[in-house]
């Protein structure tokens, strides 16, 4: 029993769960529409999540570099999505993108410029230079800082860090708030809200090697499932092909190499020091022979080279800039060159090793055009939603969707709240309160080790290349881990910060979400985009459908949905 079962109760119009790019934008837009907002973040405001880590580019059809139209961006998004995008959401993403990029520009984010215009660069899968960025590898930190500054200046938004949302409260089929654990004191916090927005990002923490924050364990998907919402396209986990592998780098994002490649044309080499991308590029009908392998194909190419015994020593590929003069490297990356030198890396003299790394989740919470789920008053945005990016996300779309869907969810949640009065029932939080109060001190299992074993199962059996046998084995292992963990939370300390209790609550979510990925992956007997079945190679036109996951009692159900219905 937790000794500290004191509770705090708060009320608001709109509760936003998660303060990365999407959550911060949602809070700003909801407040702009007149709502009173609580922005809850399990980490610190604007510090957790994936946005702050983005060192990369942001796609929008601004037409600053070359003439462009959002419909061209949409065509590239749909092509990259392997014919599985929810075209309504993809269109919203591409059409609203420029407006949000310009709004961020007005808020002084500092997009890189040249000759008096915002600079846009080419990224894989795009038909023209479309991607903006902040030098040097500072896009994410600059975006986070800009949104945090806006939050500071906005009125009507209460920001609360160290607040872990445990469950959405539902009353009469509508979201009415949430139950939370205040991590720094161990207090239980209940929040009554007229609308709730899930902006918790993706699920990359389910994998051993990942490029996102430690808090991206798929919280929002589990919150949505338990609240009665549906998930869509959950089998599509994007692996970023050239995540840093060796030598060990500290203080840098593992996905940092892409901007280097845009600017300097880094070469991917196998152990024979031979370029191999082109031999795979012919598989991509969109390839024009330049560096245009989309992420799913590049992941495939590197993995196949390793499999054929042509991998680098640490098990990936070499990425080389040795053909680029040192002063050009310096000019392109300024202070980053010094950070690399501090890690003992001189790009002019040596290649680095790279390998695929869990990076992003295309699937997520199913929403309509107002970003509302099938649960009244429950909205979602950012990476937490599914559909816009189909089976494979186009590079540069993640930050754009954080802005666009964040703003849109904030706006519609505020509208919803303006027509509602607070509906609050202690029954709506009863089961979660009971769960938290059942926490008992136990020494086994070691919750941190259990998280590591979930990551092993997912990496080894539900990674980029899947088979029927591996997936069935993963589903069994996950169930066994769940049994070992038990249905009563494990605590380690009497109140206050309790990392074991947080692990247990995370595992409760991670295990549910891991199953919600593995089950539709098992059912989809084809290879499409980020979902590659070694036993079912190639795309099957009959599988041009979405799979929907919902929770019925303790069981996950899967339904197939033809694309024509979705679009």
């Amino acid at each position, binding site marked *: 029993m937790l000794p500290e079962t004191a509770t705090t109760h708060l009320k608001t119009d709109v509760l936003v769960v998660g303060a990365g790019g999407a959550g911060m934008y949602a809070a700003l837009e909801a407040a702009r529409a007149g709502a009173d907002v609580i922005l809850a973040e399990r980490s610190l405001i604007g*510090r957790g*999540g994936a946005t702050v*880590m983005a060192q990369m580019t942001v796609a929008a059809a601004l037409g600053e570099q070359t003439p462009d139209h959002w419909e061209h961006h949409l065509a590239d998004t749909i092509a990259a999505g392997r014919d599985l995008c929810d075209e309504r959401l993809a269109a919203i993403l591409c059409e609203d993108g420029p407006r949000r990029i310009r709004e961020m520009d007005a808020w002084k984010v500092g997009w890189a410029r040249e000759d008096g215009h915002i600079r846009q660069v080419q990224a894989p899968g795009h038909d023209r230079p479309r991607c903006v960025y902040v030098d040097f590898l500072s896009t994410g930190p600059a975006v986070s800082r800009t949104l945090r500054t806006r939050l500071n200046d906005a009125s009507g938004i209460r920001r609360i860090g160290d607040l872990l949302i445990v469950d959405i409260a539902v009353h009469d089929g509508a979201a009415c708030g949430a139950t939370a654990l205040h991590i720094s004191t161990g207090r239980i916090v209940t929040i009554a809200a007229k609308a709730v927005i899930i902006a918790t990002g993706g699920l990359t923490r389910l994998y051993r090697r990942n490029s996102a924050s430690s808090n991206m364990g798929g919280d929002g998907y589990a919150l949505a499932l338990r609240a009665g919402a549906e998930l869509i396209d959950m089998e599509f986990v994007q692996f970023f092909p050239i995540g840093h592998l060796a030598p060990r780098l500290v203080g840098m994002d593992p996905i940092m190499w892409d901007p280097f490649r845009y600017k300097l044309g880094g070469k991917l080499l196998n152990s024979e020091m031979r370029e191999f991308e082109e031999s795979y590029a012919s598989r991509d009908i969109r390839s024009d022979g330049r560096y245009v392998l989309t992420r799913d194909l590049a992941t495939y190419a590197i993995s196949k080279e390793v499999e054929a015994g042509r991998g680098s020593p640490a098990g990936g590929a070499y990425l080389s800039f040795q053909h680029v003069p040192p002063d050009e490297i310096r000019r392109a990356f300024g202070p980053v060159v010094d950070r690399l030198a501090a890690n003992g890396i001189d790009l002019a003299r040596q290649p680095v090793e790279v390998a695929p790394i869990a990076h992003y989740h295309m699937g997520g919470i199913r929403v309509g055009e107002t970003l509302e789920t099938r649960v009244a008053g429950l909205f979602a945005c950012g990476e937490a939603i599914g559909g816009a990016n189909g089976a494979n996300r186009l590079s540069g779309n993640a930050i754009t969707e954080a802005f666009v869907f964040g703003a849109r969810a904030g706006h519609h949640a505020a509208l919803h709240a303006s027509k509602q009065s607070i509906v609050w029932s202690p029954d709506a939080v009863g089961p979660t309160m009971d769960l938290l109060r059942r926490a008992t001190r136990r020494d086994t299992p070691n919750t941190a080790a259990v998280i590591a074993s979930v990551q092993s199962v997912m990496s080894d059996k539900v990674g980029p290349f899947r088979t029927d046998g591996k997936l069935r084995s993963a589903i069994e292992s996950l169930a066994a881990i769940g049994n070992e963990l038990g249905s009563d939370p494990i605590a380690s300390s009497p109140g206050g910060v309790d990392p074991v209790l947080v692990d247990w609550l995370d595992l409760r979510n991670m295990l549910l979400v891991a199953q919600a990925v593995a089950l539709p992956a098992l059912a989809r007997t084809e290879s499409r985009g980020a979902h590659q079945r070694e036993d079912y190679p190639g795309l099957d036109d009959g599988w041009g459908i979405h799979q929907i996951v919902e929770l019925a009692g303790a069981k996950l159900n899967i339904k197939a949905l033809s694309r024509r219905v979705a679009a």
Partner: protein
Amino acid sequence: MRAVLAIQRGGPGQASRVDSFEVEFEPGQSVLDGLRLVRRDQDPSLAFRFSCINANACKECMMLIDGAVDYACTVRLKEGVTTLSPLPKKALLRDLVTEIAPPDERLDRATNNGAG
């Protein structure tokens, strides 16, 4: 290679103690890597803050490392003893976790100033 992490532990109002953990590491690994190994292999109740793991983007893993304020994700593990303690000028929450959120991003402020 082996590192010993001598970690100051305890909560607010408690007498602090130092627990030492030995971890095996490969050259290049960070102090944060070591702390995560301690939790996974020895003591999951060890409390420290981090979010971004490796990118030095979240800035949450700041602590005293051998007496100097630094980030656990950028300081490398070394052979022999490394002492770790919480930031001295911030309110202690537990072990290496201190209250580093700006005052207006805390629960107590939201409770006192809120419409609720």
